[in-house]
């Protein structure tokens, strides 16, 4: 890998590039699939990805291929340099400055296929024994990935990692009634625990059976919503991308283009990107530009602390670039248990899954509450059907009531439950 990357940087410079970046990745994956409740498919994948990036006279182009024979490399270089030549100049294009070379290794690099089969079989047996009315598919895989990232300023990072991944999708059918489908997933450095015991897998599957008899909410109301960890993670990521990311700032759709160190949300909200959090299986070691990634609070006590943007966006907008992405987000747990949150809710929805479109630039959005529950006077009344929650995402982050003490670790984010007020809940 080192030889190919070095050689390609040299060849790009010799072909006229002022600056060059090469990223070379090789991955091996073993993926076992349970389909219609039975082991059905085993995939063994070998993949390669080589990305070449060049800047000349402030013009930039990117070429990505997966063939590394000499003819393919020569063709890619020629095509890339022609694209650069035909590009349009923008002085904002740049690459990362020199930093000390670094190497990272993480996770189990070799798959334990026997253990994968054992964990999947165990999951399947338990599903069939304890949840006979649940239809399900599941897959478990191991990925071993090696990446070398170099640029012409001397950046040189080697990354090697291995991780396991589990996902399952399920729905229940009983007495002629059926539930919505639900799913859960995680990435993990090992398979020490049964899949059923990780995060909320068992509870979600238990819930799916009772969700075969959902009901409509009695009337439209304004109330509180408790967002499940996966739902919260998705919404926080959407919020950051919609207002603080490259695209939002460059295309001027952000409501907060010049708001560093300003309080935008409830002081209860702190969102941190933890690229190398030992608790998370899917670490990232460098930014897309190649800088070593470091822990960074994006929002701290409701204040915007950093725009998680690239060198290009930073140069376009005059803001500092970040040493983090909006990935591996963590919200610290609160002090109240989910059960207490529910007890403390006068009227609301426990939103276990959300199906929603993109929020408007102002943050307005509506989501269908899936696999969710109606709460009245501190008690769960019923699973709901055809229920819509309308709210403004920015207002929601200002109307936070509390975070739960329970968190879920998907291997790429760690989130608690979050309760907020002021949502409009309507039925069919």
């Amino acid at each position, binding site marked *: 890998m080192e030889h190919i990357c070095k050689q390609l940087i040299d060849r790009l410079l010799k072909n006229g590039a002022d600056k060059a970046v090469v990223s070379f990745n090789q991955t091996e994956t073993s993926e*076992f699939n349970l*389909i*219609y409740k*039975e*082991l*059905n*498919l*085993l*995939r*063994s*994948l*070998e*993949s390669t990805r080589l990305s070449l990036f060049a800047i000349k006279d402030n*013009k*930039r*182009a*990117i*070429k990505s*291929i997966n*063939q590394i024979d000499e003819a393919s490399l020569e063709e890619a270089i020629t*095509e890339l340099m*022609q*694209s*650069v030549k*035909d*590009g*349009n100049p*923008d002085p904002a294009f740049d690459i990362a400055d020199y930093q000390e070379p670094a190497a990272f290794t993480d996770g189990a690099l070799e798959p334990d296929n026997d253990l994968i*089969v054992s964990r999947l079989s165990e999951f399947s047996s338990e599903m069939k024994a304890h949840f006979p009315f649940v*239809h399900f*598919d599941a897959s478990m895989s191991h990925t071993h990935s090696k990446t070398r990232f170099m640029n012409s300023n001397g950046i040189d990072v080697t990354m090697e990692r291995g991780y396991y991944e589990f996902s399952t999708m399920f729905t*229940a059918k009983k007495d*002629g009634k*059926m539930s*919505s*489908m639900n799913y859960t997933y995680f990435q993990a450095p090992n398979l020490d625990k049964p899949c059923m015991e990780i995060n909320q897998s068992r509870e979600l599957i238990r819930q799916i059976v009772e969700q075969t008899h959902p009901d409509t909410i009695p009337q*439209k109301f304004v109330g509180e919503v408790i967002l499940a960890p996966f739902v919260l993670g998705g919404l926080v990521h959407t919020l950051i991308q919609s207002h603080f990311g490259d695209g939002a700032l*460059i*295309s*001027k*759709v952000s*409501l907060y283009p010049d708001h560093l160190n300003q309080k935008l949300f409830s002081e209860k909200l702190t969102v941190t990107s933890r690229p190398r959090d030992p608790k998370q299986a899917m670490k990232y070691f460098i930014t897309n530009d190649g800088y070593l990634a470091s822990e960074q609070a994006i929002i701290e006590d409701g204040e915007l602390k950093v725009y998680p943007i690239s060198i290009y966006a930073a140069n376009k907008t005059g803001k500092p670039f970040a040493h983090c992405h909006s990935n591996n987000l963590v919200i610290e747990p609160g002090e109240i248990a989910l059960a207490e949150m529910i007890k403390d809710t006068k009227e609301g929805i426990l939103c276990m899954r959300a*199906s*929603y*479109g*993109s929020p*408007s630039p*102002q943050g*307005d*959005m*509506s989501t269908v509450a*899936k696999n969710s529950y109606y709460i009245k006077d501190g008690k769960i009344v019923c699973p709901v*059907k*055809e229920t*819509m*929650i*309308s709210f403004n995402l920015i207002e929601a982050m200002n109307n936070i009531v509390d975070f739960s003490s329970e968190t879920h670790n998907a291997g790429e984010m760690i989130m608690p439950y979050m309760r907020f007020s002021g949502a*409009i809940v*309507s039925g*069919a």
Partner: protein
Amino acid sequence: MKVLELKQSLPAGLDYWEIKQQENREQMVFFLDGNMTSNNRSSSLGIMCRAYKDGVWGLASSALGDSATLSRICGKAASNAALLAKHRAGKQFLLPSNPAQGEYLFYTRKEPWSFAQRRDFLLELDNYLKTKYPGLSSRQVGIRQDETEKHIITSDGGDMHVMIPRSFLYLLMVDSGPDGPVQSYRALGGFGQFEDIYSDPKEVYEEIEKIYRETQDMKEAVYARAGSFDCVLDARLAGILAHEAIGHTTEADFVLGGSIAGDYLNQPVASDLVSLIDIANTYDNTLCPVPVFIDDEGTLAEDCVIIDKGILKSYMHNKESAAMLDMQLTGNARGHNFDDEPLIRMRNTMIVPGKDKLAEMIASIEDGYYLVESSNGQADATSEFMFGISLGYEVKNGKLGKAIKSTTMSGVAFDLLKTVTMVSDDMYWTGSGMCGKKQSIQVGMGGPAIKCRVNLGGK
């Protein structure tokens, strides 16, 4: 793609196998406010073998394309099937067969445009936007072209070589409204290479004016009211209704996984005004956005009539689901990348046009909405669906009112389709969609405008 001789590596002793060589190619060029923000090309080429033995599948793939690697991955696929068979206790099925052979290479017959010509096309459009609408706070124009080339042989005689291109022109306008930024967006184009679809930027000016008008309408947008309303879904929405709300529930793997559609075969599921078909490749003598002639299992791709005048008639299949449900093959098995196993995927799912006029449909609404553009959609095994609505208008006493802010529309498809009272006589295809079901894959979707009752999010 240099086509390999795949037959040399035939594995022996298997119940069924397929070998695929595939290359996906993509080019993206985007300008934002006159700056070229994307100038990217990518390609991904490789080989895959999938083997079926004793009721289970083994698959192996590699980006390398030499004969030694081909032999190795074929052996690995067979050994993967053998390994899995040791742990399998389920029933085994004899896979059905309806093989086809053919070559379908849709390279443009026109002089291919250089990268510089495409760049200049975009720059002219960008300059037009900048000059004609100087008040916009931001503008974006872009081209994306993807090409999928596959060469597949199967043990039951399937043999195909296909190259399917799609090209899209993206337009985005951002303006400042009283409540902050508003935006309108469109993906134009579809099947074909760029030269097959566009020749002059002026051809797009009329569509640009529509997008600009929508942006201005959004400045005055009001909140939709939350609740259930009579609505007209524009033809631009019909495709996603066909795909998300109905289509997914009738993919046979969903049916085997418990989809509600499994209970409704040959029963009324919609108004008799509704017919829904997954078109293989050609509708009304025209190639659809994603034409499929032979699927990735070498099966002849045929139209699948899912709903005929309100009655659920059939499901979409691959070999395994057709065997399990004892139904006819439809040719819906497709994989997106070279290393993807073929899954049951829709091709070009459409609602058949009716006889009503859009204007009369809107005029018939007393208090409801005209929903025009969708941002995304999701489906459920129950047929409950959700679409993000990025453009819509109030309708009061049969007249269009103010635009509404982004909202979400939902419903239970098999209930909603029973409320359909009018179907327009026009037809609109959307070809830019990518459907995410384990793998993201190109799909076409289309239909006419529909009057029905739906749930809306809002104030």
